[in-house]
Structures are given as C-alpha cells and as structure tokens.
C-alpha cells in the first residue's frame, strides 16, 4: 500500500541554545510533488531541509517519510538525498567517481557502480565529462554532477538547498526547466529551498512560505499568490496592496486589480491620494499613490489603460478595487 504523504512533519521544533530556528511546524507533502520552502534568510527553511535530511537533529517532534518515522535515523537510511548549495563535489575525485561515491560506500562493485553512474551522467547530460575533475567544470556543469550524485542512490526524496542561487540568470532559467522535467520523469518528491518567489511560483506544486521559524502558508502557488493568508505572505510575494483595518487583520488587494480614477469620480471602495511615481514596465505601468491616510499604494495598469487616461506625478487621483478582490489577511 502506498503512503499518503511522502514527507510529514509533526510538531517539529529545532532550537540552537536560546534561538528557535524552527518553531513547532506541521507540514504534509503529498506523493511525487515539487515542494518549495520559500522565505527570507533566517526564516528556518534551510534548517527544515537539513532536519529532513538528517544533518540536524530535531529538538522535538517527528518526521515521517512514506509513513515511516525516521526522526532519529542517519541520513543514508531515510531515503533522502541532498544537493548542497555549493554542490560539495569531492575535489579529488573525477566526475564519475563523484557520482558513484554513494554506491561505493554501499559496497557496489566497480563495474556495476560505474554502469549506474554512467546512466545518471546521461540523465544529466554530462557523459562527456566523466573523466574531468570538478575544478575543470563550470558552475552549471558542477551542478549537474551534484544532481547526478544525489540521484544515483535512487532516493525517494531529493532535497535541494538553494540549487539555482549560484547560477547566472540565463542558466538559472534553463536549470529550472530541467529540475521540473527531472522531477516529472523520476516521479519522486523534490523539496527545494529558495528565497526567490519567482522560482517557487515557477516550479512548485506546493509552496511553503516560512517566516520566523513558522509556516505562514502552505498551498499551491496560485492560492498562495491569489489568496495570501497573512500580511507577510502578501508582502513577501509582492504584487499586493495592504491596507490596515481596525481589527488584527489587513486588507490585501492585488496591485493589478487596482484601478486609478480621477479624484472627483464616485467609486467605492476607494482611497484618495497624490501620484508620487510612475514607472513604465513594458506590458504594464506601475503607478504609486501616496494616499491621504499616509499609506503608499500601487496600481499596475495595462499600458493601454494607463495611456487612455494618463496621470502625471503630483496629480490627485483615487485608487479603487472591487470588493471581491479584497481579502482580509492576518496582520504580522
């Protein structure tokens, strides 16, 4: 019988002395999903990943992988494999020996482990570099070797620690597609730590937004963006106006759902203010409004809408939205 979830975290807490890195989190990652742990630095995402990998012990709580409690198992017995942020390739071993390392440690004979390593070099399109040392490879190539090395032991879960952060933007885009393709092809769960919301949106089936050691929201990217649960999520993902309310909530409205009107137009709900900045961004125009309430709101207008009724900096204007686009979020 197959497990319900590939990974389950139950009340996991990790403390370093007085500081709490991960604070009592629960998380369920369905089978064969691409999960992104997203958040600013110091939010606990990397610690969470390392705890799942077994490179850190939990202070309390349980970790289940395919329904088995592996909270205290060593890394190699969890069915996980980790790809390190700096790739951590063995500098004294050539590519094929790097890839075959895990098999060698498990006592697989030379011929067999080289055959398997070649398979994974092929999967990552690195066959031609089998005899090279890591220092003779570019960053992107090193990453492919690191990926092959992690996959060679056929893990159930692949853990990736900021895998794309060291690459230039062009390579990053290509590797992103490749990671998604590999995850699909292999049919295993990927858990990917990133601080880039764009990366998380593009890759994930499940985005887990973290802050201060806690999970703010865990949802499909569409829902995380469209229906943020907390003000932090709305701010971190961007593209939202936040307006304070009387209770402990704020109102979040997507900036591309906000429209600008002349100051004397009668529209509800709306807030009056003065245009303080206009930025042309190609497909859209970003207009910033300093409202009379003292908060700064942004409207992203399609270019033809903006140029139909252009505004100048200093103009009085009214920013309006439809009630159905406004979501109350927890202020934090």
């Amino acid at each position, binding site marked *: 019988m197959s497990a319900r979830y590939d990974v389950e975290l139950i009340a996991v807490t990790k403390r370093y002395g007085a500081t709490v890195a991960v604070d009592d989190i629960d998380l369920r990652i369905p089978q064969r999903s691409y999960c992104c742990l997203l958040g600013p630095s110091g939010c606990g995402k990397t610690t969470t990943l390392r705890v799942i*990998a077994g*490179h850190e012990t939990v202070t309390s709580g349980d970790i289940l992988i395919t329904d088995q409690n592996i909270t205290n198992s*060593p*890394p*190699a017995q969890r069915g996980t*494999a*980790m790809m*390190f*942020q*700096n790739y*951590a*390739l*063995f*500098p*004294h071993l050539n590519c094929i020996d790097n890839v075959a*390392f*895990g098999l*060698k*440690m*498990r006592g697989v004979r030379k011929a067999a482990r080289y055959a398997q390593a070649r398979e994974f070099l092929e999967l990552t399109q690195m066959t031609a570099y089998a005899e090279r*040392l890591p*220092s*003779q*490879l*570019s*960053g992107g190539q090193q990453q492919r070797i690191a990926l092959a*090395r*992690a996959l060679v*032991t056929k893990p159930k879960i692949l853990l990736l620690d900021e895998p794309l952060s060291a690459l230039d933007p062009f390579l990053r885009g290509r590797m992103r597609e490749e990671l998604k393709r590999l995850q699909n092809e292999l049919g295993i769960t990927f858990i990917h730590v990133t601080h880039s919301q764009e990366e998380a949106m593009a890759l994930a089936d499940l985005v887990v937004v973290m802050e201060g050691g806690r999970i703010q929201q865990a949802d499909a990217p569409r829902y995380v963006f469209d229906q943020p649960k907390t003000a932090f999520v709305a701010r971190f993902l961007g593209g939202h106006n936040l307006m304070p309310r009387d209770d402990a909530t704020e109102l979040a409205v997507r900036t591309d759902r906000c429209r600008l009107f002349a100051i004397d137009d009668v529209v509800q709900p709306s807030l009056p203010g003065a245009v303080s900045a206009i930025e042309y961004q190609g497909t859209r125009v970003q207009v910033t409004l300093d409202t009379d309430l003292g908060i700064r709101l942004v409207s992203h207008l399609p270019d033809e809408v903006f140029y139909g009724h252009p505004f100048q900096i200093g103009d009085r204007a009214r920013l309006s939205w439809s009630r159905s686009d406004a979501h109350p979020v927890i202020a934090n």
Partner: protein
Amino acid sequence: MSTVPVAAERAALAAAPGARGRLNVARAAAHFQAAPMAMVFLCFLVFPIVAIVVVSFFDYDSVQIIPRFTLENYRELLLSKVTWETYLNTFRFAAMTWAVTLLIGFTLSYFLAFHVHSTLMRIGLSLVCTVPFWTSNIIRMISWIPFLGRNGLLNMALLRLGIIHQPLEFLLFSDFAVVLALVHLNTFFMMIPIFNSMMKIDRSLIEAARDAGARAPQILWNVVIPLSKTGIAVGSIFVIALVMGDFVTVRLMSGGQSASVGLMMANSISLLQYPAAAANAILLLFLVLGLIAGIVRSVDIRGELTGSIARARAADE
C-alpha cells in the same frame, strides 16, 4: 604648456614598441622585487653548498686541507661498509620517526580540525603543542634521562606498582629512546601542515559523504585522508629532512651506541677531516633530495596548487 609633450608621450606608449617597452619594464620590476629573496638564497644557500661541493673534492692530511682535486674522499666514503650501515641505520630512524609522527600528527590534527569547534580553543590547544619548544633541544633530551633511566621515575613507578620486577633496560640509551626523542622533537612539524590541509577541507564535503551513506571510517579513508595528502607530504618532508640530518639526539639518546650520518660527519669534522665530511654531506644531500622528489612526485603538490588556481579561475568565470 606641457600638453603637447604629454600627448606625444602617450601616443608613443600606445604604439606597439612602446607597449613592449612597458612590458619589459614590468618584467624588470618583477625581477627587482624578487631580488632580495634571491640574494638571501644565493648568499646563504647556494654559495655554501657550492663551497661544500668544492671542498669535497679537495685532498687533506691530518692538519690541513690541500686544495688539489681528488676523488679519494668519495671513493673512501662509497666503498666503506660503515658508510652504508650508518646510512641504513639513519634511514631506519627516519622511517620509524616518520611513521610515529605521522600517526600522532594526523590524529592530533584530526582532533583539532574536526572535533574542536571554537577557534579560541583551537589556538589554545595548538599553543599547548608548542610547549616542547619552550626549552632548548639539549635540555629537552637531558630531561628524559631522569625519567627513563635505570633508576628513573618510570622504572621506579612500574616496580612499585608491581608491574615489572626488574628495571626495563631498553628505555634509555637505546633505539627506543632515540626514536622517542625524535618523535618528541618532530611531531609538531608533521602536525601543523596536516592541520593546515584539514582546515581547508570544506565541511560540507563531510556532510555530503555522510549523506551518500559513508560511515566515519569511510569518510576518513575516502575524503579526509585524500584531501590531507598535501599536508602529509609537507610534514613528511620536514620530518625526514630533520631526522636525516640529526646527530645530537642520536648521540645523546643512544648513549653513543648508535651511529647516524650526522654523527659520522661530526666525527670527521672533529678530526679536522673537512673534505671527508663535505663529501658525506653531498651524499646525504642527494639521498634526501631523492626522497623528497619521490614524495613530491607521489603526491603532486604542484598539481594541488595549480588545481586550486584552476578552481579560483572557474569561480571567477
């Protein structure tokens, strides 16, 4: 007023011959910067060795050096059985000392690099390792005598505890004592280069190895030892060169019962047979250089250096 000449100078510099001239200037500057060290090497290393080589081909009698070319010094040296027995004995001391210092040095470095996590503690413990160097070599060796002697502390303690019934004779004035003193003197020189190499090992490599299923001994054998090789090679060169040239330790700790190459040379010098000592020195020099060449070749220290340069370049790209 000066604009025209300056412009002309610039144009001249920009032209190809001017650029070549600048290159030559840069090269000359580099040579100039290297000159002080080159002079030091020339005065204190090359000249003395040349002098020794020259003297080794001179004749001598019981009172003076006779500046007349002869191969007699080398013939006597190379054809004497005593020479080769002494060399063999010295190599034996060097090998034993090397093995023991490697074991202790590696273990200490491993502990300092991987089990001590605070920098302050590391510095403190490294300083503790330098304690043997706070007194002179002679005092350090002499202080072994009351400890290891027939009626020394160790024998007395073991007798009192009933572990032995006769004083142990091999403790002092023996090969054991020689190697003990040599290890005491040289472990530090083995430890520091190894510690240096180990500190350069990226800790995520250890984690990556563990992630791949390696157990502690496998990590040691497959990751730590290969990546400490440069340090082991440098430490080995220090220890072997120092032990091969030693004469005080062997004389004192063996109680004059063991010979070493250094001792042989010291004897020649005390008999004013400088050319014979010089010939011996040249032979020792070549043998030690051969050993070092062997070590350097097997570990490829230069390859390791160029490797790190290639890595730095790859990182730049």
